[in-house]
Every structure is written in C-alpha cells, then in structure tokens.
C-alpha cells in the first residue's frame, strides 16, 4: 500500500488521514474477527487431531478438557500474534490494481524483489510458529524437539542423553515450507488484489458464502503441500537435521526410523497430523485474508455536499478530483455508481447548484473526473493499438515515418487540467480519422468552459481541421487497419519491449516521446543506422534462442490484461455517468447536465470506437476464458469484457432515455450516424 501510495504523486495529508480513518477501521475490524474465529478453528483442530471413533465419549470429554490447558491458551495467544502479523502484511501489500507480469522474467524479478523476500521470510517464520503450536496442541510424539534417548547405553549413565525428535522437526520445517509456499502463491495468484464484488451484500453473507470454498481449498492445498514437502524432505531433510543436531548437541535415536527415508515418510499418523497442521495454518490465514478483502471492498458512503466546512475534503466531488490513494478513488467511484443508480436524494445533491453563485460545482466536478478517466483510457488504447500496428514496421530502419513533433505543444500546455498532459504528445498523424477529430475537439474544450459556450466543441476548430489535412496527406493514412502490417515482424507483442504498460502510463509516455525525438536528432548519421541494424540483428539472433525467448517473450494475453488492469474504475465511471445522465432526463431541474451532454456522448462514442477496434486486433480473444471455482479471484483477467459490455449498455441507457431528443444535440456527423444506429438498436 505504502509503495502504491508513493507512486501517486501528491497525496495530501487530509487524504492520508481519511484513508487511515476508513481503511484503518476496516483492517482493525477484520483482524478482530479473524482473532475471534481463532478459538473455533483451534477447538476443531484439537478435536479432529485426537479423533477416536471407538471411544466417542472419551474423545469428546478429553478434547474439551484439552481446550483449557495452559498450553493451548498460550498457543492461542501466539497464533493471535501470527494472525496480527499476517493481517498487517495483507494490509500493507493490498492493491486495487493488480500488477501483472508480462513475461516470465518479470515474474522472476518480482519473486526476488526485496519486498517480496521480506514477505516470504516473515511468512515462513510465521508458518513455523503455527506449526509449533500445532505440534504442541497435537501432543503425543510431536510435543518436544528433544526427547530422552531410549537407546540402552543411556541407562548406564546418570545423565540421560537427549535425542532429536524428528517428528517435531518435520512439523516445524513443514510449517516454514507452507508459509513460504503461501507467500509465493500470494504473489503468483495476485492474492493482494482486492476484487470488488459484482453485487453488494452484507459482510456476514459474503463470508458465509466463501467459507465452504475456503475450507475445501485449504484441505486440498494442504494435501498438495504436504506431498511436495515430503519430496523435499526426502532429498534435503538431512541438512537441517544435521545442523540442529550439531548446534543443540543432540543425538540420534538409533531405534527409530529416520524420516528422510521412504519407510519413515510412510507413517500414516505423521502424514495425517502434518496435513492437519497445514489445514489449520491455511484456514486461519485465509480467513484473515478473506475478512480483510470483504471489509475493505465494502461500499463507503461519501457525502456529496459537506454539512460542515471541515468535511469538505471528505466529500465525493473533492475526492474524485484530487489524486487520492487508489483504494480511496475506487471507493469513491463505487459510491458514485451506487448513488447514481439507487439514491434519488443524493442524485439531487449532484444536480444541485451552489448556494451563493448558482454554479453546478458538484456535477461539473463529477462529470469532469469521469470524462477525464474515460478519455485517458481512450488515449491509452490508441497508443496500444499504435504500438501493435507499428510492430511490423520496426524492421525497416527508416525513421521517416516516425511522426513529427506535435505541432501544438503550447496549446496543449496552456489548457486546463481537464486533459492530461499526455494528450499533447500522442502521435496524431497515425490516429484513426474519426477518433482524432473527436479527441482534438475534446482537447480544445475543457469541460469547465462548456457551461458558457455549448456549441464550441463541435464546430471544427482550425486546429483539428489542420490536423485532419495533415493526416490525409500522411502516407500511413488508413494503414493502421491493415492486418498484414500487424502480423508481420518478430513475435514481440509490443514494439517497445522496454516499455512497461503495467504501471504508471502517464510517466512512460513522455519517455517515448523523448526517445523518439533523440532518435530524430541522431538520424542523419550513418553510424546510427549501422547501430540500428546491428541491434536488430542481435535481437533477431537472440529471439531465435529458445531459452531467452522463454524468459523474455511477452505473453499476449498478459499484456492485454495489464492494459486493462485498472478498468474497474472506468466501468464505474461509465455506469455512474450514464445513470446520472439518464436520471437527469426527469430529475435535473436546472438543466446542468444538458450542457455536458455533447461531451459525454462524444467521449462515450469515441471510446466505443476504440474499444471495438481493440477487440479486432490480432491476439485478442473475444470471449472470456472459463474460470474455475477458485478462492483467489481472477476477475481482473476479464475486466475488458466487462468494460465492453458496460460501455454499450451505458450508451444505450442514454439513448433509450433521451430517444429522438438526441437529434438536437450537436455532435460530429460520424457520431451522429453512430447515435442513429444506437437509437435504432442496430449496434
């Protein structure tokens, strides 16, 4: 979390405070509940581990008596501490945007990242502690690490030799192994990702719903882990054993079977108790994880209008427009979606005018942020499509087709913050024609000005006209769609292999631009060309080596998933915006939404076009993969399909509500045609 928060630039103190206030309480509640559930799990563990079907009454009474022993109570305390530590890690590592490694190398680098190493080590230690507790609670032969030797030579001496109890050691190592594997799974399956549920439900019901799956998965996983650990112990078990014996000055009981042999490992009681130990470890940890996930994704009710002036920072429009920690932004957008859909009173607050002055500040803030998010997504998708399209051209060393520096950097810079600075840098000459004109018109019309001059965004400005001419003359006009170009070339899926689409896109775009400009500067020298060709040769040489390709090749599915990793935000923005616009048809008394309607339509239709085009790219599957019932949520893998569906629904929601009235809204002719198709239900 801390890392994620640091990546976003200015997080104000108030927002940190708010985050702590919201998330802190949620984390505390989830920890409290998981600690409260611990005795239940422990009691179940004790009764199952001492199971005796032939003497049921004795079994039940003895397991009840065991519950009150000081051993067990101490173990409970220790395990509560373990749960606390695990939960702190859950809170610190959580993310609303999953990080998806695009190649195997990226995955490996994630595993050896210091943060992850700390995570793994701590989890291994915690696993060992849980295993120790399990060993103590199981009693019997697992209780102590050292036991008096049973061998005959000890009886002669006064001081009995102490021998190593390998069963105890086995359990401890198993705990460490499980902790480490849990940590690895946590990383690989993106278990730090907080998926927001598709429907709202009470926390208890959500918990109850996932409980059977959790129990089942813990049992099955524990089985696999015990199997893996047995294999590992068979081969490497002698190392820790020898180390413990030498450091603690213990002996080996020659009468007992050593455990790193086949016969020793085939001890049913040992396997059963190790499996149980694994089950309690996984169940308690998964419960803590699940509760945190349920608590943190619960909807939060942000006020639309502050009742007191101190609360200004906590109200919805303010949070949407600032740059808060991601989870706060997600919660705010989720709340926007709910209020637009369900709450008449809060919608009225959004449509209301400010008391002195009569400005629709709330609506302007909300719509500006939603449109901003959607426009950024449009730009990101265009850039991705370009990268895929230029892939084929990379082989030709000609630099001529690298487009000129954008001709209007000044204009772009002078604009309000409505448009992100990336817009100015985007390669305009290669944009598809429709998209370009609308984007440019978007750029020239900050939403804040829309209230005053309605028509302006749709009269083609000289700027966009000029750009349109430029584009027509460009040799690459229309080539983007050509599938031949897209399919040619090496099998790297994005042309800039060093470019990470995963993370902060805003930062990476300027670097491309800078790189390109520097390329252009060097262009005339033949040395550069020679270097380029050498580079290509090396690349093609390397790409033929299987092992290197194995590590470096980007998985197309993964890079697309990474592109859409934060799309949940856009889906909520779409739903919130469309519900608000549709509701404004009857509820907006002052007509504040009307002024923004053209730009909303413009943005939605442009995005629709770009998304359509995206799904026509090669390597893009048009259907979601089947997901099996898994505890770790994989919903981030299918977000793009949700985006496509909710985008269409959003446009239909507006068109069905407004109907023929939309013909009076000024939009570009292409968009008018598109709107007509939506009105006739032909999309």
């Amino acid at each position, binding site marked *: 979390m801390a890392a994620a928060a640091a990546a976003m630039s200015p997080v104000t103190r108030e927002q940190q405070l708010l985050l702590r206030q919201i998330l802190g309480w949620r984390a505390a509640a989830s920890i409290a509940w998981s600690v409260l559930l611990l005795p239940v799990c422990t009691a179940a563990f004790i009764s199952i581990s001492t199971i005796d079907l032939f003497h049921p009454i004795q079994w039940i009474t003895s397991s009840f008596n065991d519950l009150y022993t000081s051993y067990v109570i101490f173990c409970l305390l220790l395990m509560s501490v373990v749960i606390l530590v695990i939960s702190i890690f859950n809170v610190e590592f959580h993310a609303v945007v999953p990080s998806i490694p695009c190649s195997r190398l990226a995955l490996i680098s994630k595993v050896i990242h210091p943060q992850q190493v700390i995570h793994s080590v701590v989890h291994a230690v915690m696993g060992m502690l849980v295993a120790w507790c399990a060993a103590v609670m199981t009693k019997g032969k697992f209780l102590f690490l050292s036991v008096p030797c049973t061998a005959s030579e000890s009886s002669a001496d006064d001081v009995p030799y102490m021998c190593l109890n390998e069963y105890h050691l086995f359990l401890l190592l198993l705990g460490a192994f499980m902790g480490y594997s849990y940590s690895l799974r946590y990383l690989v399956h993106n278990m730090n990702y907080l998926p927001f549920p598709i429907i709202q439900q009470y926390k208890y019901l959500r918990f109850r719903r996932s409980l059977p799956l959790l129990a089942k998965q813990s049992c099955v996983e524990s089985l696999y882990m015990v199997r893996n650990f047995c294999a590992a112990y068979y081969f490497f078990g002698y190392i820790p054993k020898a180390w413990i014996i030498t450091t603690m000055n213990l002996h080996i009981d020659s009468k007992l079977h050593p455990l790193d042999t086949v016969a020793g490992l085939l001890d049913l009681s040992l396997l059963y108790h190790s499996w149980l130990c694994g089950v309690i470890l996984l169940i308690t940890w998964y419960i803590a994880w699940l509760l945190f996930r349920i608590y943190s994704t619960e909807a939060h009710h942000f006020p639309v209008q502050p009742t007191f002036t101190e609360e200004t920072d906590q109200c919805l429009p303010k949070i949407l427009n600032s740059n808060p920690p991601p989870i706060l932004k997600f919660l705010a957008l989720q709340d926007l979606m709910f209020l637009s*859909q369900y709450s008449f009173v809060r919608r009225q607050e959004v449509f209301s005018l400010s008391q002195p002055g009569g400005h629709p500040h709330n609506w302007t803030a909300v719509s500006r942020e939603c449109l901003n998010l959607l426009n950024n997504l449009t730009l990101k998708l265009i850039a991705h499509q370009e990268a895929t399209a230029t892939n084929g051209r990379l082989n030709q060393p000609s630099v001529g087709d690298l487009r000129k520096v954008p001709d209007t950097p000044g204009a772009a810079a002078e604009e309000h913050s409505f448009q992100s600075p990336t817009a100015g840098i985007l390669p305009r000459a290669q944009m598809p024609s429709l998209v370009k004109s609308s984007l440019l018109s978007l750029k020239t019309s900050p939403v804040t000005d829309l209230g005053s001059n309605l028509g302006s965004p749709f009269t083609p400005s000289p700027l966009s006209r000029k750009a349109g001419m430029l584009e027509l003359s460009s040799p690459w006009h229309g080539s983007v769609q050509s599938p031949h170009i897209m399919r040619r070339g090496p099998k790297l899926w994005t042309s800039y292999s060093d470019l990470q689409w995963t993370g902060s896109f805003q930062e990476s775009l300027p670097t491309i631009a800078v790189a390109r400009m520097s390329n252009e500067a060097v262009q005339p020298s033949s040395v550069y060309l020679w270097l380029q060709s050498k580079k290509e040769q090396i690349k093609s040489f390397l790409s033929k080596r299987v092992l290197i390709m194995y590590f470096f090749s980007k998985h197309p599915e993964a890079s697309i998933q990474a592109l859409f990793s934060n799309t949940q935000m856009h889906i909520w923005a779409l739903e919130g915006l469309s519900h608000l616009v549709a509701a404004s048809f009857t509820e907006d008394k002052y007509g504040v939404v009307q002024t923004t309607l053209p730009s909303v339509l413009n943005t939605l239709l442009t995005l629709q076009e770009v998304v359509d085009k995206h799904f026509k790219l090669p390597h893009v599957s048009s259907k979601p993969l089947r997901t099996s019932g898994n505890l770790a949520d994989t919903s981030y893998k299918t977000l793009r399909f949700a985006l496509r569906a909710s985008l269409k629904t959003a446009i239909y929601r507006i068109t069905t509500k407004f109907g023929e009235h939309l013909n009076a809204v000024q939009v570009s002719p292409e968009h008018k045609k598109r709107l007509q198709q939506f009105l006739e239900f032909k999309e």
Partner: protein
Amino acid sequence: MCSLALFPPPPPPRDITLYEYNNALVSGHSSEKLPHPIQAQVEDLPTLTIPKEMLKAHSRLEHSTKPAFIHHREILWKRCINAWRDVGVAGVLEELANAEGEEQWNQGLGEQSWTDSAKQLAVRWLKAGSCCTLALCRWVSSLHGSFFPHLSLPSEDMIAEFSQAVDWAGCSIRAFAWHPHTSKFAVALLDDSIRVYNAKSATVPILKHRLQRNVASLAWKPLCASILAVACHSCVLLWHLDPTSLSTRPSSGCAQVLSHPGHCPVTSLAWAPSGGLLLSASPVDTAMLVWDVSTENCVQLQWFGGGGVTFLAWSPDGSKVLAATPSAVFRVWEVQMWTCEKWPTIKGPCRTGCWSPDGSRLLFTVQGESVIYSLSFLEYSGEQQGRVGGSKTASIVADLSETKFDTLYGEERIGGEVHSMVWDPSGERLAAVIRGFSDQRIIIAVFRTRNSPVFELLPCGFVQGEVGAQPQLVAFHPRFKKGAVLTVCWSTGKVSHIPFFFENGPFPSFSSPQSPLLPLGSRCSTREQPLFSEL
C-alpha cells in the same frame, strides 16, 4: 373485489377476439379484416403459425458418440477410472456395484489360484460396500425428496411443471420473449430450436446449439440490441445476434455457455432492467445465481428452505425480484443489498407473479387457488438499505372461481387457477391465463388496472382464439404507443397479436419511479385506503 361474474360473456364460439376499442373487446370472424386505422398500427408485427407437424423430431437423441462404436468391455479398475472421470464418485460406486461380469468370468475359468480368489474376495467386498453406500445415498435423497416431492420428478416433467407455458411438453411453442426495446421477438420451439422474428426485416435467424435442449425460458438483455439468454436443460446459453447480420443460421460460436454444477434444469431467467446482471433459477438448486454475463462470474444467493427456485420476476423499476419456490413459500429480494423477505402462502406454491411498472405492487397467484393476490411495497427511494418494505399481508383482489355464463350459444363455465399472468408496461391492462380445475377450456381474462392513486382492477373481457386453439403463452409488447398489444401463442402453433387501444394514464411509464417529494402523510393515507376498489 373483482370477480368473473362481472365480466361480459365470452364471444360466440366461432369468433376470435380481434382488438379492444372503447373499453370493450371486439370479436369477429377470423377472416374479417381489421378496420383500416387499426390494421395500420399492427401491420408490421409478424403473425405466424408453426404447426407441430412442421417441426422435425430430434435428429439425435443421444448427444454422444458412444452408440457409433462397438461396445468393448474393459477391466474393472479401468472402468472405475473412466467413471470417476466422467461422473465422479457416484459413478465409481455405481460401477463397483454392477461389477458382476468380472466375477462370472472368473468363475467360468474353473480352478483358481489363491491370488484370484483373493482378488475376487476384494471385489466382492468392494461391491458390497458400494452397494451399501449407494443404498444409503438413495435413502437420504428419497428422504430429501419426500420433503420436496418435485425433486423426484425427471427433469423434463419438472420443467413442464414449472414452466409458464400451459402445455410445455406437447405444444410446438415452448417459450416466447419480446425484445424490451424493439419490435423483435424470439420463440423457442419443440425441436429445441429458437427463431427470431423482426418486424423490420424478413430474415429469421434460427438458433441451434448442442446444449440447447428443453428450453424453458427466454429473455432478451435490456439496453442491448442483440443478447438473448436461453434457459436450457443443463446451462444458460447467451446468444450474441448481430442485428445487422443477414445470416439465418448463426453458428454456435455466437453462443456463450454459462453453467454451474448442480444448477440444472434452469427454468427461469430474469435480467436486471439496467442491463448487466442476469438471474437464473433452477427448481433443484436452493441458490439463485447472479451472473455478471460479460465476465461469466456468478454469485450464489443461497437461502435454504423451499427446495429450489421455480420462477423469477424482476420488477420493471429494477428494485425488487420475486422468487417463487416449489413449496408454499415465496421470497421477494431487494437488489441493493440482496436481502429478502419471505411470504408463506397457505395452500400451495406461488405459480406466477407480475409487478406494476413502478415496482410498488406485486400481483401473484397460488397453485390450487382461484384468486389473484396483491402485495404492496413501500415506495422505493434507495435510502432504506437492505429493506424490502412489503406490507404484512397480501390481499385478494380478484376472485376467479368457476362462474356460469349463459350465452346465446349455450351455457359456459369459466374459472379456475391462474397459470400465468402478465401486466402491460403502462400498467393499464392485465392478462391472466385461467385454467380450470376440471376439463374446462383454458381462457385468457383481461382486466383493466390502475395503480395510482388507488389500485383498481376492473373487468375487461375474455380473449378467444380460433376453434380448438388453447392459449399457451401470453406476453405484452414492450413499446406500443397507442395502448398495449397482447401477443398470444396458441396451442395450434399460431402467434397472434391483439391490440388494445386506450389513452395512457396520467402517469406515463417513463416518469420517475420515485416521488419522495410527496409529503409523508399523503403516502401513509394511501396505504390506509383499501387496496382495491369495491364494486
């Protein structure tokens, strides 16, 4: 209370109901032309007849390639492994319990070594064990079945029992659905194909899929042009039909399969009016499933009791869902927090139900009773999270018990339980398919309704089809400007449209469903008043 005795007598036997004008149903001869202005209104709605004889029987009854190969008997453990892979633990038990061939084969060999006899002993033990386990399982399931008798029905009978169609098993049309926004409808036929008719185009896409068997229900996705959900025997199919496409046989690649273990047969579907979510229900599964169809994720809404869910109806304002169960209880869910309220009925399970356009009133009928109940709900304003807000008891608004009509052509007895019921989108007309308890004919009764300021239910008339045609399914056209259009599927395979002309009430359907600006007092006073007008 409205009763059948107040209805005008049914039309003469050879006449069919043509349209409604000036609050009266006009009937005439089937060949009679509608008056020109009326004809112009319904001209583009496709009328069709699909007789049963026209439909081909199932081409393949068995959907596997097994019969094409010579049967080859494998050794027991191999068969067990196969069964485990195909069916699971139950399959292994079944296989073990039927493991007789092995033994006889062994015995036929005559003399045996001790390994053989040991093997035989083991097989015998396994066999006895699995027989016992199977018997125990059967006993438990029969116990379960004795609580919920519908569970012991074969799945086709179960669908026929709970389907909204009057004669699901025998009629050529099994399900029908209007598109919520355009003049387009889909019909599911006896041969498991689906045809999509469009008023504006002549192409009739025919949808067939390997998994599309025993279609019980159809539903078009709202706020979308092209997605049709089909409740099939083992899954929910989602057809993506490109409205601009001219193809008459969309490939099965256009269909998305949503399946969940233990959730079959699916008998009812309901889309959220805001798009997005799809609900599916099965009489076997106690949980309803909420599907996010674009990502194929589903959430189980588990609520034990009732033994399953047979019928779903989502209120048009999107705030509540009716879920009927096979036992004498039904639930109404509120969709913001997905909590439910439970209403036990006295006599039998809830058969069908429909919502008023603003979602404030639910009309439902109970199997075995010839009355229509009404249940009113608090006005929905999003603030009361997790509350359904239904009134304490339901009131009877119509009595449909058997009534004798003396007509010129003899005496007619009409009345009985309501099989299915639909309310038109403007909330002005209610059509109920009435099926008598004995061998009476099935008839459609049409009521005039008003929901505000006071709920009123007034008789309008009976709708009659051609000679020998029984109504099978009814549905209202979602967008008809001049009143309402009732589409009736008849048992002869005919689909006809009957227009009702009336002025829409003072509260058009697109007005905001919420009216919290009303002072609270007035709302209370409306709730004090009787829920139906006494006549």
